[in-house]
């Protein structure tokens, strides 16, 4: 099971966190501090796994961002690397060549994508296409609602003029 997902920039800034096990706010910041200290200082040729508090953190660097997933001792580390890549590719398709800025300004969308990939720390969908389709469908739902709302407010605005 994936305990949590972290996206940390090379400067140690947090870009996304998702906790599937209960950690208090205090523990969370401690975990982030600890892990960014360990992971950001590791050299490029080293393996992508760090043992930490009896768990393992699988991380992978994509340009300026480190994608980290913390897993149980007996989980398959290599598979988690694939899950990370799966996530990155879906983000890439969704944003169209995703970059760190996309994830900063549209962080909520990154979360929506993640929620279509993982639930309860387990992989939900292995098809990138399906995920993309589901996100698009929900985005369009939002859009329709907005349009309706704005047309209503227009009507009200018209009527009250």
């Amino acid at each position, binding site marked *: 099971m994936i305990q949590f997902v972290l996206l940390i920039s090379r400067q140690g800034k947090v870009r996304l966190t998702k906790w599937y096990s209960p950690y208090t706010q205090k523990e969370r910041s401690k975990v982030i501090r600890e892990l960014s200290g360990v992971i950001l200082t590791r050299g490029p040729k080293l393996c992508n796994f760090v043992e930490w508090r009896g768990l393992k953190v699988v991380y992978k660097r994509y340009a300026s961002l480190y994608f980290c997933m913390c897993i149980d001792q007996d989980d*398959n580390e290599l*598979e988690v690397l*694939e899950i990370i890549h799966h996530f990155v590719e879906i983000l890439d*398709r969704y944003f169209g060549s995703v970059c760190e800025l996309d994830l*900063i300004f549209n962080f*909520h969308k990154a*979360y929506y994508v993640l929620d279509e990939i993982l639930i309860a720390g387990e992989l939900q969908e292995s098809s990138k296409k399906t995920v993309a389709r589901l996100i698009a469908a929900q985005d369009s739902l939002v859009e329709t609602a907005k349009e309706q709302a704005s047309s209503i407010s227009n009507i009200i605005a018209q009527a009250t003029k």
Partner: protein
Amino acid sequence: MESRLLVMVVVMVVEEKGKEGGHNKERWRGSEEEEEEEEEKRRKDQQQHTPGILFPIMNPFSSGTRLRDMIRAIRACKTAAEERAVVRKECAAIRTSMNENDQDYRHRNLAKLMFIHMLGYPTHFGQMECLKLIASAGFPEKRIGYLGLMLLLDERQEVLMLVTNSLKQDLNHSNQYIVGLALCALGNICSAEMARDLAPEVERLLQFRDPNVRKKAALCSIRIIKKVPDLSENFINPAAALLKEKHHGVLITGIQLCTDLCKVSPEALEFLRKKHTDGLVKTLKDAVNSPYKPEYDIAGIADPFLHIRLLKLLRVLGQGDADASDAMNDILAQVATKTESKKNAGNAILYECVETIMSIEDNGGLRVLAINILGRFLSNRDNNIRYVALNMLMKAITVDAQAVQRHRATILECVKDSDASIQKRALELVYALVNETNVKPLTKELIDYLEVSDQEFKGDLTDKICSIVEKFSPEKIWYIDQMLRVLNEAGNFVKDEVWHALIVVISSASDLHGYTVRALYKAFQTSSEQESLVRVAVWCIGEYGDMLVNNVGMLDIEDPIMVTESDTVDVIKIAIKHHALDLTTKAMALMALLKLSSRFPSCSERIKDIIVQHKGSFVLELQQRSLEFNSIIEKHQKIRSALVERMPILDEATFSTRRAGLLPAAVSTSGGASLDLPNGVAKPSAAPLVDLLDLSDDLPAPSSSDGDFLQDLLGVDLSPAPTQSGLGQIQKAGTDVLLDLLSIGTPVQSSSPTTEILLPSQNDKSPIATLDARSSSSSLSAQATSSARAAPMMDLLDGFGPSPLKPEDNGSVYPSLVAFESSSLRITFNSSKQPGNPQTTLIQATFTNLTPNVFTDLIFQAAVPKFLQLHLDPASSNILPASGNGSITQNLRVTNSQHGKKSLLMRMRMSYKIDNKDMLEEGQINNFPQDLGS
């Protein structure tokens, strides 16, 4: 298109640096300038194409900033203080807006809060907003509301309970996306209470028409059964139904759910094993043989995630069941041989497959295949692959140690890898691989590596080497050699108990004293920075300094060295002057100097000068010792040599028992019905033991902590104050109770510093070893007669008396004594000694019933102080006839390690039943015949 994108992602994302023209790459790098430019562009995009997708501008007069603007403002902050100010301002605005119950901006506020939360600021005041958004009707509000719920709350917050009702409604919503949102939130943060409340809804959704809801429900069920395992029963059937699905999302989540069900519910495991093993094997077969499917393809494999989950579930089913294991043999062999191992995805499958093969019931052929795969992994250039290989070999050891041994050389290489994760795994593995036959070469390799390893790794490595050496050492000289090398290379990483153990070993290897002290002398010349090396060296030079100078006990392998007495003193002087060494080391050095002053009379003056220098030390300990030692050297020439005699051999067994944290075996029990003893086996607590041992009545009540325990043990020796003054010692009461006790116990003061130098660094348990040893080492022991005339403390005083050594009896019988007598029970002891073994006393205890009632279940227990060892044989019976019409006998064997100095002491407890009524009596014996103890 699909594959091109994939390539692009890989190129742009993974490689990062690249050729010109990669616009995407530039963007990923994101220099400040470009960031701004980029952001500007995106902002325009956003305005043109998606006008306020998230936050429509409904109220043009609102003063609130948009999310995007807030993020920009925060990013523009140069300092943390600036950032805090911006966040504070935003939070204030959000609170105001919330208080006004501003509908239109609710989701914008929440989005801002989420960002602020991510930066680590408190956002609890926004929690209620999430609930309001979730409760509103529209999808956009619910979407952001659930996101906020998952981000800002966790399962332990009370607020969460309030959302249960909304969740229930949404789980029954007609819009499948809203159902999806609710399932996702429930799966990520539900608590046990919510799990109980909402389990029926989730269970029903496992059969929902849309597969995307089914898969979410499956994962949500995992969370539910983990929180409340009792609920798993309801999920078994619907979960098993998911195994037949074709939709990959539903299939992988269904398999995952089944795997987790098996973990929490044996019935589920049994059911799935019986009904679904074959089906799963077939599913895996289809997956392995499936044609190219672009949608699921990763590195030429159609859906590796599915493969891995199937292998995982098969592993659970096959474990401990030969039939199920048998059913999956063929497909496992196929996966193990056919899977492409060039890419990570393929390796992930192979790795999972190997684990499954290792876990299911034995099939020789498959295991060979698996070990071979691991061998291949181990020689892979990719660090990730090597890491997982090491990880898996650890599990393989239990299955086939021989096969793992074959890779020893490669594993040893991995210990020397530059990657800390790999080093750590490899070291664990090497540790598991060591046995009697390979300990020498492996240790050599590890210690060789210790010389060049990183500082951070040295601690771990040293620990493991020490542990290996202690565990497998074939002979003492090898042990000492290896430990000296470790001390030499990484003395600062050696734990205290390790060098304590080394000293015990050195002390017991009397033929190696000369060799060891010379080796340490040489080592000190090169590695005087290594604290524990210095300590061991200082101790050994103090003890065996004369052997160093005279080249005593030369081994064939040694080259003779020329060391003068003054060189030896130099070494100690360096140690004591060295600024980096701590108090313990300096105290040990002072002690060594005192010892040397007697061994090398010619250097006595010089040693005195060095000692005197510390009489002004700011550290009380050093100051005091320095004054004391000085006076010994100056005024007590006569007793000095006796005082500082060599330490007796330290008892390894005692030391290792202490180290293992075991209580000393002082309580012995009668045979027969010993299982339900009041103070023993069933509830091992220290208190009763202490109680039994507390022989001196004038000490405060014992407590159960180790330290007090010790005191109580020693309390036996403690005599009321008056003894002290007569000794002319510079003892101060109250500095350290323990030490004072001991100083009294062994009347001559000099031996107490020996203790003291060891004390500060030792834990509560270990000092006893030295204490015992030390007290017996007293040179005056020859004179010390222990007498049992009065209370035990009298012996101590008598230690000074001129009474001559009693001649040792060779096998004798002593008059019987009444050890205990009450109105109901009498115990008499008949003692005897065997010839040639004066330390051991054989006692035959005879129990006599003085009442007209029969005693049943008689149990006799005895406890003795630390310097005695007691062995109880089973009693002749546990029923004692009434009115002295017969008796029970029981044999005891007491060994006195302080024979000649202390007399026997024993405290006992008798429990028995009269007419099923429990009786308990206690007593103490200190009137053993005088010459028995001595």
